[in-house]
C-alpha cells in the first residue's frame, strides 16, 4: 500500500443535503474521480476552529479530502493506493 500525503486545492462536486455534506466527485489534473463510498467523516481541530475530513473511495483507491468551512475550500490531503 502506497500512501502519499499532500495539500492540494481541488474542485469538488458536492451535495449539500439539509444538514449533511457529501462529496460526490472531485477533479484533479484534468480527470474526474467519482466517489463510490464515503467511508469515514471526522473533524480536525485547527486552533479554535475545525476542518472536516472525508475518507472516500472511488472503487480502486482511497483518498482523504478536507473541507474548510471558513475558507470554503476543498483540499486533497491523502492518496492511498493498493499495490
Amino acid at each position, binding site marked *: *500500500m502506497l500512501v502519499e500525503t499532500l495539500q492540494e486545492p481541488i474542485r469538488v462536486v458536492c451535495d449539500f443535503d439539509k444538514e449533511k455534506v457529501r462529496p460526490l466527485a472531485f477533479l484533479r489534473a484534468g480527470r474526474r474521480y467519482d466517489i463510490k463510498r464515503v*467511508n*469515514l467523516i*471526522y*473533524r480536525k*481541530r485547527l*486552533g479554535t476552529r475545525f476542518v472536516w475530513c472525508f475518507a472516500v*473511495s472511488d472503487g480502486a483507491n*482511497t483518498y482523504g479530502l478536507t473541507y474548510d468551512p471558513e475558507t470554503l475550500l476543498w483540499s486533497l490531503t491523502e492518496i*492511498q493506493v493498493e499495490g
Partner: protein
Amino acid sequence: MSFPRIIMHIDMNSYFASVEQQANPALRGKPVGVVATMTPHGCIIASSKEAKAVGIKTGCRVDEAFFLYPAVRLVQVDPPKYRSTTEKIFSILQRYSEDIEPYSIDEAFVNLTGYAKSFNEAVRIGHEIKRQIFTEAGEWLTNSIGIAPTRWLAKFGSDICEKGGIIVLHKEDVRRYLAGRELTEAWGIAERTAYKLNCLGITTLDELAAYSPYELQRVFGIRGYELWANVNGVEVSSLRLADNGYQVPKSIGHSHVLRKQTRNITFHRAVMMRLAERTGRKLRSLGLRANGIFAHAGLHEGGHTGESRKLDRPIEGGEEIFRLSWGMVEKSIRLSAPSFLSLGVFRLSPDTGQRSLLPTVENTVLSRALDAINDRFGEETIVRGTLFGLEGDHAPDRVGFRKTVEPDSRGLLAAYKEEQRESRDISYEKSE
C-alpha cells in the same frame, strides 16, 4: 416507583485499528497495526482482530510485527480521526442517558438507572446503540457491552463478553461468571496485587468473592474492602458517574521515541521544547498549574536517565517546563545519544489567578498571547526560537491512554470556570 440500578459499559473492539479499517476498506479483513512511530523500534499501540490472531498484540514492536507476519499493514497513528469518531459515539450514548462517564477514548460507562425499567430493556438499548454506531459512525466499528448493577461488574462483563456481543451480569449469579477466572482478568487487579492475594491462598476471582472482607481489609486497608465489594456486586465508586468524568488529571506529559540517532544537542533541545510547549498548552487549556515535574531520557547505549522533582511554586508555561526538564536530562544527553525523551508535570491544581510575590522566570502574559494566536490559526503558528526548523514528524500529536478522558478540553475548562465562579460567589456572599 423505584427502578433497578443498571450500569452499561461499552468497549469499542480494537478501536484505533477498526477506525483505520473503516476509513480505508482495503485494510478490512487484514492484519493491521497502528504505530506511534514508523521505525523498527516503534511501538504498535493498537492492532486489528486479524493482527491479534497472528500474534501481533498491542505493545509489539514494528520489527517484531514484520517477523510474525511479513504482510502486516502498518498505519501511522492519526489522533483526530479517533477523537472525532469517539465524539460521534459518545453523542449516540447521550441519547439514552445524561449520566455518562467517558472512561477512555474507546470506553464509557452509561448509567441507565431510571432510563431503563429492566435489564431486558437495557439489552434492547444496547442493541439500538450498536445499530446506531453501525449506521452513523461506521459499519466496521464493533463493540462489547456489559450490563450489570455496578460499574465494576459492567466493565468485567464487557471484558469477558465475546467481541461484538452483549452480556448481562446479575448480582445473584455473578459467582458463576467469576468461577475459575484468574485474578488478573479483573479490572483493577495487576500482577502485584494478584501476588499478594496468592499469598492469602486466593488464586481465582470466585475465591476472592468468598474470602472474608474483614481479613482483606486488614491486609490491604480500604482497598481490600473494594476488592471484595467489586466481585460481590457492591457499588463502591458510584459518585464518578454523576460528574460526567470531570476529574483533575494526576499528571500531564508527553514522550517521543526519536526517529534518528544523533548527538545534535540543538535537535534534542527542540524536541524537548515541543514536548514542553504541548504540556504547557494542555495545562493552561485545562485551567491548571503544576507543582511537580519529571523528565526522562532513554539512552542508545542502554539504560535511562532522569528525575522527578516537587516544586516550591506552581508553573504553567512551556518555557519553564522546558528549562526545568532539560536541566534534568541535559548532562546525560551530552554524553550519550538518547533514544526517547519524555517529560511531564504532576501535583496539579486549578489556576486561581493568584500570582507569586517572588520574581518568576515565566512570562505568563506572553504564554497566553501565544496561546491566543495558536488557538486562532492552528498549533505552532507561532513558536519559540528553540523550536524553529524542527520538522512536524518529530514528536507529533499523540493520542493519550488516559483513563477518564474529556472529549473536548474546552468543556472541562468551562466546568472549571463555572466552579471558580461559584466559589467566588460563595466568598462574596460571606464577605457581605
